[in-house]
Structures are given as C-alpha cells and as structure tokens.
C-alpha cells in the first residue's frame, strides 16, 4: 500500500506538470500575483507558514543575495533575500528573510536557503516569492508552476460601478438590475476579493482572471499570469493595456475597461475565477437610453 502511495505521489506532480515545489511547508497565500501592493502590482506571491524554514523551489544556484552584513549603503526594500538561478533562465527570489543561508552556491530543493522574516518593506512575517523569466524579462505568477493549494472558496464580486467618461457625470453609478441610464462611454469598475480556505476571511487576494461580456459578447479578459516592462511601464500581459493605474481604481476595485453603451437593453455578465478554478459570476440587465 505504501509503495502504491509513493508511486502515486511521484506521478501526480509529473502528470500535472508542477515544475516546482513550495518553498515553505503548509503555505498560506496572503498576497497573490498582480495584486495591488503598495501602489503597484505585486510581482510575486506572499506566503505564510507554520514553519520558518525556506527552501528553493527547485535545484539551482544562488547568484545574488543580501543579508544584514553584505549590503552597502543602499537600502533594501526586499530586506534580506536570495536569488536562485534555475534552468532555462528562470530566477526565483526569496525576500523578507530573517536569515539567509548560503554555505555553498549550489542548492537542491532540500537545502534550506533561509528563514521567514520581516526584513524590508513587508506587513508581517512572510516570504515573498518572485519568479523572473530572465530570457523574456517578465515576472511569472509562481502559482502557475507550483502544486495547487486546497481552496474551495469562490471569489466575491462586490459592487459594480459605471463611471461616465463623456457623459459629463464622473460620479460613480452603482450597477444594479433594472438600472436605467443614458448612453455614452463608461468605465466599468468592479470590487472583487478572493478569499482562500487556508487564509480565512482576513487576507483577501486578487483573482486569477476576470472576464466581461456585454450582450453575450466577450469584451475584456484580464489574466494575472505575467507582468512585463513595456515602454517604461509594468504591464499585465494578455490583459489589454493593463498598467497599474489603468487596472486599479483602489486596491480591491478593478477598472475592467471603458465601453460605449448604446441605447437598448444591455446584459452585463461578469465571470471571475481564482487560481484553483473556483468561479463566481454575476449577470445584470440594464436599460440604456438615448
């Protein structure tokens, strides 16, 4: 029985293609990739754990690190950290560490690289894990390459607003069933929070994807998969021109896009998924006047 279990455990990650292992045991996701953090996109994920030990997500080589003793005069918002280079130009960065252990530069996934801490700009004891694709110069959502977290909670869709762009009325209009409003160009803003089973109801995170349909037509998709610097701005890839100020009205309110609402009945459908595939949707019918 034990042998079968061992084989199953060995095969599952290979079958599902999890490239990496969790850097901490019993991880609790408290900040998701692309989430609004300190007025910017979070370029990684923030994890809490019952254990302080941090391990590399895969075999690799430490190419840069900073511990209390090794920095110059420049401050380090990432606190104490280590950068591990893996195959295919992937870097994993472990930040806000208390201690950094670099007795050798070559690491396997079993070699402790540090302990979780509070160094640098962070809100509590946590590990900030960043995945950087050095070849394509983009930050990747680490959840894409890590084993799944057990989470059955659906994302919560809160208030939905229209903000007039050329109607002369820039105040927020809450979108409710049966709403009647005059035609024009509106920005659609939606409040979304995703709660994870293991994080309780205290640490919401960003969803993994947001889709908007107008009268059945898919008008906008936002995916928190990767971030890349384009023309001096960090842009959420495959999500339109989503820079931070274009996507976030406030930390939990997303600017889905700007749409020209023509007169007639309009069906607004919003579908939101978290990384584990839990989905919430909301359909609202409104009437647009001349």
């Amino acid at each position, binding site marked *: 029985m034990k042998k079968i279990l061992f084989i199953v455990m060995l095969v599952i990650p290979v079958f599902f293609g999890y490239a990496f292992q969790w850097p901490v045991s019993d991880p609790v996701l408290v900040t998701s990739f692309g989430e609004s*953090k*300190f*007025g*910017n996109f*979070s*370029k*990684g994920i923030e994890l809490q754990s019952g254990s302080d030990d941090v391990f590399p997500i895969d075999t690799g080589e*430490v*190419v*840069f*690190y*900073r*511990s209390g*003793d*090794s*920095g*110059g*005069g*420049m*401050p*380090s*918002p*990432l606190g104490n950290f280590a*950068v591990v*280079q893996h195959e295919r130009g992937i*870097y994993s*960065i472990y930040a806000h560490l208390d201690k950094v252990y*670099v007795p050798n*530069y070559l690491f396997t996934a079993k070699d402790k690289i540090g302990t979780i801490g*509070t*160094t*640098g*700009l*962070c*809100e509590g004891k946590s590990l900030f894990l*960043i995945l*950087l694709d*050095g070849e394509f*110069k983009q930050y990747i959502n680490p959840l894409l390459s890590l084993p799944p977290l057990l989470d059955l909670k659906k994302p919560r869709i809160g208030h939905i607003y229209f903000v007039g762009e050329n109607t002369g009325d820039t105040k927020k209009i809450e979108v409710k069933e049966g709403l009647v409003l005059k035609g024009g160009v509106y920005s659609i803003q939606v409040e979304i929070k995703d709660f994870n089973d293991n994080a309780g109801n205290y640490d919401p995170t960003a969803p993994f994807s947001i889709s908007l349909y107008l009268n059945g037509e898919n008008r906008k998709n936002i995916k928190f998969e990767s971030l*890349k*610097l384009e023309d*001096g*701005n*960090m842009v959420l890839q495959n999500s339109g021109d989503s820079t931070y100020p274009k996507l976030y009205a406030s930390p939990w309110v997303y600017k889905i896009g700007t749409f020209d609402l023509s007169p007639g009945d309009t069906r607004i459908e919003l579908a939101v998924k978290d990384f584990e595939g839990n989905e919430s949707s909301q359909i609202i019918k409104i009437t647009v006047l001349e």
Partner: protein
Amino acid sequence: MSMYKLSFLLILAYIVLLGRPLEREYSLEPGWVSDLRGEGAVSTSEPDGVPFRFSGHFGYFSPQKAVIFHDNILYGTALDRQGFINYSSINSALVLQSPEGMVSGRLEVTGYPYFTSGRRFILNSDGTALSEMNQEGAILWTFRFSSMITDVSASRTSVAVGTLNSGIRMLDTSGTEIFSYKPDFGKINTVYGTALNSDDSSILVISGLEPQKLLLFSKKSSGYRIVYSRNLENEYRFQRQCGFSSDGSFAYFDNGSYLSVLNTVRRQIKEFPVGGTLQHAVIPGLHDLVFTSARIGDVISFSGFGFNGERIFNYTSRGRDSFLTRDTSGIYSGAGEYLFKLDMVKR
C-alpha cells in the same frame, strides 16, 4: 682629487639624484568624543553639520563641537547635509526633516529613500524602480527596470544603476537613459557593484560570474568605452562596495578582507589588508592616506594606510557597525555608542 673630496661628491650626487625625502609621520591625538546613549536632540543652532549614521544612531556633528543633533534610527535613515528621512520598515509616507529635526516636507509614497552625492532617491517597494525627489520631496522622475536594482551610484549630473538581469543603466538628471551596458561574458550579467566618479568621466562596474570582472569605463567623445578590464580572483555574490577617490584618480572596491584600489591612470591595483568585512573606505587622493573601517566579529578596526600599502595607524572600537569620514583637521569615527574625533597631525 682626494679621496675625501670624491666621497663628498658621491654623497652629494646620491642625495641630489637618488635621495628621497623622509616619510612624514602621522600622529593621532584625541579630539572629542560623544556618547550617543540617552536622549536624542542636543543642539539646533550649529550650521552646516556633517551627517553620520551607524549602530542605530544618526545625526549631525560639528567638526569643532561634537554632536549637534542625534536620534535613533527607526528602521532606516537617509541623510545628507540638507536633511534626513528617518523611516520605519513599512510606511505610506516619508517625512523630510531638516538637520535640526524640523519637518520640511512630506512625500506620500511607499519605498525606501537613499540620499547620495547631494541627490535624493527612492527605491520602490520591490526594488525595481528608482525615483528622484527634490529637496521639498516632490518626485521629479521615475525609472522602472525589468529586474531588481542591485546597486546605485550617483554624481551631481548622472546616476548609474546596476541590475540583476539588465546590466548597467545610466540616467541623467531628468531620468532619461544616456548609457547602458549589458555584460556578455560569464554565465550571468548581474551587476554586483558600480561607482560613478564626481564628474561622470569614469564608471566602475563589477559584473558577472565565472568570470566576475572589474570594468572601468571612461568617457570619450563617442561615449563610454571600457579602458580597463580584469577578471577578479575572488568572486562574491552580494553587493560589493565600490567608489572613487575625491579627485577621481583612484577607484576602490571591497575584496574580501582586502580593500583593492585601482589607480585609474596607471591601471595598477594595490591591495590593503583591512582584516575583516570592509564597511567604509575614504580615499581623499594621491597625497593623503587610505582610511578604512572593517568589522572583525564584534570589533570595528579603523586603519590608515600609505599608498605604498604600509599601515600607518590602527585603532579598534567595540561595535558591529561603523562610521568613518575625514577632513583636513582629523578623522571622525563611530562605532558602538560613540562618535569621536581624532586630530591627525603630520610631523
């Protein structure tokens, strides 16, 4: 000619042709000492204080009258002669204060400030963007990098930024890129250290692994060109301290328990055994000494070297973090709870 006369002429010829002046001797004499324990602010009326920071303390001192203002560091402090920001680890605003401790500005931003070469910068929360602010705290420009910043060095007119994966980028005072270099040797192009001299004519870069190279760029009419390159025997994978002497004739970098000093004209490297982890190096110029502070366990070792490599003086103080600067009248050192001045007398 008699034997006596011949001997005299030979001695005279030796003195004229081969003789060298006697080495000057330096002696250190106690100046003043300030105990930084206890309450913070001391005095506010002294103009032009010299900033210091070490061991959880920061403030300003007058070369003649010891400490004129001091306080404890919250999490970090950025300071220059015009003022300081004492910040906590997490912040949503940075408060600018004058050397007397008066609030002079407020900046609604989350990041860590870094003051260097009379300029004021902010690193954003994940260390991938650099902004410059003016004296009042208004953001002048922001430059975002595709990977994290590993080192920053500024002059009055430029700033050189080393990165994890994008080489070195040089920006002008408006944040516009004026030069970039991406190492194409070794197995990684990480920049481990960079320094810019005061007139932007030279850039020192330590970059790469296997090999890790020391590169000296010099400004030519066609832009910056590598004028000196050397594989470093000791490769380190953390930020390496580097800088230039005040007159630009020397560049230096930390090299394990040594300070390595490159003569930028003769392109020769001289090593000075600092004995521990280098914390500060002060190299005024060719006709002065090389001053260093290094940590050896729980002790800070302060040394002065002649350019021939000879250690002229050494003193130690308990502590793990140090401060070191120099002016024409003496050496100002800090370690543990004490800031002290030693008058340096040439004989």
